[in-house]
């Protein structure tokens, strides 16, 4: 006769199965098949991406094009296409700076730097369309990084780099919205200093602003403080970041973009930026949690990738969140203690490598060159960030 605590063999099996399910769901992969890619695969993917970039460089040293190349992109101001070209170009300069040098890459970098330093400054395209901010944001990031690179710091180009950096910085300062952030559109009534910012655009430039302040380029520390405060105020209690700052921060129910699943890429860039700015509102555990959620809900980024209408996927995810989010996820990983990083990078790499095309390029939205080139540069930077010797 069985005692009161005895279990039927089937009941035992049920308990064991339940325990296994719990263990699986609480694993870093969050219940998904956790793929891994090692450093060798990352190097191979990075090199193919860089080869594509080097091959696609224009004779004048520039990348992509400042002209509209597809009917899906109509509706923006004429100036926006040049603005995006300059921003794309800055990303390629960053990729070529960060990645190991070869003769071909160095030659491409030198020509790219020359174009970057001599091309005409971007200008606001229309009353509502201020996509020139993308050029200014990545222009500042690339200028600071270029100025810190020993290959260019000691060259004849030093003064030119500083001048260009100051130029981009002045453009940013002039366009900082009253609440402290940066955005790329304006709302009526249109004003010379725009009024709309976004968390992610503001966050991406925070570390570069710290460096610019240290270099003496940014003389008004309030600019950076306001920007940090803007990003901090976009943080929501659920761990997500608002797309743009609202007087009453909220994440409405349903498929709102400010839900976690619509904030996967913003979480990475905002956590990374606030941590790098030594803002106490973000802890390393927040960075880990943000990364965990990134992988747990990654399917929402997969589904959105290559959809041609902005924000058309679930939780208003847009295709172009993809490589942007992965790059800053890689940088967020790199603020974690050294022993933790490789595990995260091994999980991150497959999400980039699985999207790489035969010619080495990558794309997450439409097919215009500025997007393909920018995405490939972001992909290369993501892979490079997980390899030994990459900067934090």
């Amino acid at each position: 006769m069985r005692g009161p605590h005895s279990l039927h063999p089937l009941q035992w099996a049920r308990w064991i199965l339940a325990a296994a399910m719990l263990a699986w769901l609480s694993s870093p992969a969050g219940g998904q098949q956790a793929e891994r890619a090692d450093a060798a695969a990352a190097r191979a993917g990075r090199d193919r991406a860089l080869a594509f970039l080097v091959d696609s460089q224009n004779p004048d040293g520039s990348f992509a094009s400042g002209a509209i190349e597809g009917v899906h992109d109509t509706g923006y101001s004429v100036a926006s296409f040049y603005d995006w070209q300059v921003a794309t170009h800055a990303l390629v300069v960053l990729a070529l700076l960060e990645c190991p040098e070869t003769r071909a890459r160095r030659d491409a970098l030198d020509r790219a730097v020359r174009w970057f330093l001599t091309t005409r400054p971007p200008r606001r395209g229309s009353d509502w369309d201020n996509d020139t901010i993308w050029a200014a944001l990545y222009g500042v990031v690339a200028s600071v990084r270029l100025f810190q690179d020993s290959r260019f710091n000691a060259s004849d180009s030093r003064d030119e780099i500083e001048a260009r950096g100051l130029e981009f910085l002045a453009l940013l300062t002039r366009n900082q919205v009253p609440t402290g952030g940066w955005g790329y559109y304006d709302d009526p009534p249109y004003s010379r200093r725009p009024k709309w910012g976004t968390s992610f655009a503001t966050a991406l430039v925070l570390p570069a602003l710290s460096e610019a302040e240290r270099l003496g380029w940014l003389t008004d520390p309030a600019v950076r403080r306001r920007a940090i405060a803007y990003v901090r105020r976009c943080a929501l209690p659920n761990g997500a970041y608002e797309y743009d700052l609202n007087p009453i921060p909220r994440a409405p129910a349903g498929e709102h973009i400010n839900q976690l699943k619509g904030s996967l890429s913003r979480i990475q860039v905002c956590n990374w930026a606030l941590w790098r700015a030594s803002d106490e509102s973000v802890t390393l555990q927040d960075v880990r949690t943000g990364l965990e959620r990134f992988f747990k809900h990654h399917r929402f980024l997969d589904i959105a990738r290559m959809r041609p209408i902005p924000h058309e996927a679930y939780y208003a995810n847009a295709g172009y969140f993809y490589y942007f989010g992965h790059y800053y996820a890689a940088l967020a990983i790199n603020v974690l203690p050294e022993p933790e990083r490789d595990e995260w990078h091994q999980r991150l790499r497959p999400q980039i490598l699985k999207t790489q095309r035969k010619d080495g390029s990558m794309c997450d939205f439409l097919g215009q060159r500025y997007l393909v080139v920018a995405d490939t540069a972001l992909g290369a930077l993501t892979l490079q960030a997980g390899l030994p010797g990459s900067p934090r």
Partner: protein
Amino acid sequence: MASIRTIPSGLLVIVLGLLCVCVPRAGAQEADAEKAPAEKQDSKEPPDPPDPKKLERKVAKFTRELELARIELRIAELSNQIKLNSCRSGLRKAERAQADQQQALEHFLGHTQPVTLEKAGIELERSANRAEYAKDEFQELEAMYKAEEFAEMTKELVLKRGRRKLELAERDLALERRSFEMVAKHDLPKERRELEQKLESAREALEAAQLELAKEELSAQVSLAKAQHKLQDLERDLEEARGELGQAASAVEQ
């Protein structure tokens, strides 16, 4: 166009002439009729003197008839005025209606028809552009996914959407072509025909109104002349009766 006054003038002359000829002849016949018994009496025996009482009744009768004839003349005048006013009003309306229809046709030919055709043409062109744009978009999507071998999760969704958009744009274009043909070859010609028919009807109505007025003017003259002649006859009869009565009264006194 012939004047309203020129057409009936000949008729008017004829009618008046007939009236002038007939009325005196009627008076002459009456005089002859009165003379005949007298001549008979002269040939046999002297007539009896007229009865004064009969003559008084005759005078009273002619007096009453004369009063009625005066009223009838006034009635004829008023009736003519009413009929002529109505005819003239009808003529003015018919003139205005014809002018309006003429203007409507001219407006249609000068503005409505070319503007409607132009608008329909632009709508057709817009649909053609939309279809071409949808085709360009779809081709761009196809090219985008051709280069992108990994985006299987979105590829079919997006291409299906683009294909349907193109199909609908092409159907819309076909419909717009039919619509243009309908407007150009059916609706506008039909509207033109209707306007031309309305103008023709208005012209006919105007001509009828002109004839009606001419007829009424003649009728008015005839009825007025009749009433006047009747009045004149009665005045003369009354005068004669009074004369006879006076003579009879003198004879009785003698």
